[in-house]
């Protein structure tokens, strides 16, 4: 049995970090897609590029591009805000030709486990299909569903549920 966990763990940490950032952010939007970069708490040396957010990096994706789209309850159709966000991913992939994306699909906790796995798959695929329609090569894209297993925000609140119904783009470190 081979286990390759680092990708998941890293993603979970980053998601948590990003989520709290978007909580404080001005724009949660009607479907919650945050396009406002969170406040940069770092130094006055590099005001434009936060340290670590090298172009084409995971941090670049999260901070400067936006790494997630949100969905309505039991929905897997991209909203107009969601489509705009996915278009930004397409632009980013156009600039960063070496990059591949893993798109994670997630659901809130108010569904049964297996149905939510299927729903997460649908959400991830909705983003994937739109990227392909925008010209991204399919072999640069993978999807994975976590169903309700990896909420971005803990707790049983409508706000948490809205943030957890999401597809998240992660720089795909796995090469097969």
């Amino acid at each position, binding site marked *: 049995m081979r286990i390759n966990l680092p990708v998941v763990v890293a993603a979970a940490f980053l998601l948590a970090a990003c989520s709290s950032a978007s909580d404080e952010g001005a724009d949660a939007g009607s479907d919650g897609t945050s396009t406002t970069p969170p406040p940069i708490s770092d130094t006055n040396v590099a005001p434009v590029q936060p340290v670590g957010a090298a172009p084409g990096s995971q941090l670049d994706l999260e901070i400067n591009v936006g790494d997630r789209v949100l969905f309505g309850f039991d929905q897997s159709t991209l909203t107009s805000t969601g489509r705009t966000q996915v278009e930004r991913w397409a632009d980013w992939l156009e600039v960063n030709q070496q990059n591949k994306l893993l798109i994670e699909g997630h659901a809130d906790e108010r569904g049964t486990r297996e149905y939510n796995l299927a729903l997460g798959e649908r959400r991830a695929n909705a983003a994937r299909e739109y990227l392909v329609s925008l010209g991204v090569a399919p072999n640069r894209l993978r999807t994975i569903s976590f169903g309700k297993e990896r909420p971005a925000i803990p*707790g049983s609140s409508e706000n948490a549920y809205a943030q957890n119904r999401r597809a998240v783009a992660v720089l795909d470190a796995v090469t097969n």
Partner: protein
Amino acid sequence: MLSHIENLRRRAIFLITIVAALALPTIAHAQLKVDVTGGNIEPLPIAVPDFIPGDAQAQKVAVDIAAVIAQDLERSGLFAPIDKSAFLSQPAGLAVRPNFVNWKPLNAQALIVGEAKLTADGQLSTDFRLWDVFAEQPMTGLSLTTSLSNWRRVAHLIADAIYERITGERGYFDTRIVYISETGPAEKKIKRLSIMDQDGANHRFLSNGDALVLTPRFSPTQQEITYLAYFNNQPRVYLFNIDTGEQEVLGDFPGMTFAPRFSPDGNQVIMSLAENGNSDINVMDLRTRQVRRLTTHPSIDTSPSYSPDGRQIVFESDRGGSQQLYVMNADGSNQHRISFKAGGRYGTPVWSPRGDLIAFTKIQSGLFHIGVMRPDGSGERLLAKGFLVESPTWAPNGRVLMFFKQNKSDAKGNGRNSRLYSIDLTGQNEREIITPVEASDPAWSPASSR
């Protein structure tokens, strides 16, 4: 991973010798009967004195066996073991007719008299009689010989025999539960494949928590578990051999495979396969590894479960606009919806081992319910409800269900407290099954082969 030796020991050494079911008179013992189909059942008072030790070495196990029998019977909700401190006398021995005048004042309807001794080669040898106190008649008896380490199974088998004799239903105490242990914060729960006896004893973790694991289910022989694991960050259905600890991925699919269950004959695993975002139900023959696709609808089709005769499959689909239950023939033909009550979403259907009912999770008015309906969709009854109750699984006798229950959690994710519960098919006797940490996705083993 689990210890292979431990497993092999558990399996191989349990060569139980059932010597005799006794030649009992078949007359006049029909009075004592618990009708399990009734609503609010008054538990039957039963006296379970310590077993009589045949030697000094057997003293502890003689007490322990009686305690486990009493616990099993009590937890079923159908029996009320009488407090031992109220006993007016102790049984003198198997060969001695009980002094019934000492048991009638306690209103003991039934009395168990048992003996336990260790044989020269260290084997545990037990024998018991079940007596109808007011009819003053023996009802059943059993002699069991096995390794001392199997004493709990001996107790469960005796409890099964008592339950069967008095209720007319098959016992379910000599069974196990496979489930998922949960620790850690909500955003990155650590989930571990776990196994225990139905009463929570002999608990073991079967995985170390490195990979996310979900929805384990037993094979009909109890030798294997099929479940979903995220090894290498790829959610796939695996087959896990409990005896050897070895496992293998089932099939080589480009997309996620999930929601696996064995067919009743154990030769096939039915599961969902996601392709381009769409989930359909497929069945794999474990011998040929050939895969057949059973649903082709552009909707979510998942959570398949076979009828016990293997001829039909119940599953959930949102093809009608919301998550509902459907039944189809095992070849995929005649797909038809069976859940119609307005305002409810239905999921996780599981066909009863008796074939007469389908258990499900229902989401309605912001609450989750565990319920049952007939295979044609009629006779819906809701048994349990809560903020989140999910994932029913049947005891092999089709009389008891287990599921998991979660509470609302606060903004820090605290308070969720996911736990396992069992409930009688009547909706009575909801009981927690105590687990070391939080728990979800229980699956009851089939009846053990005896």
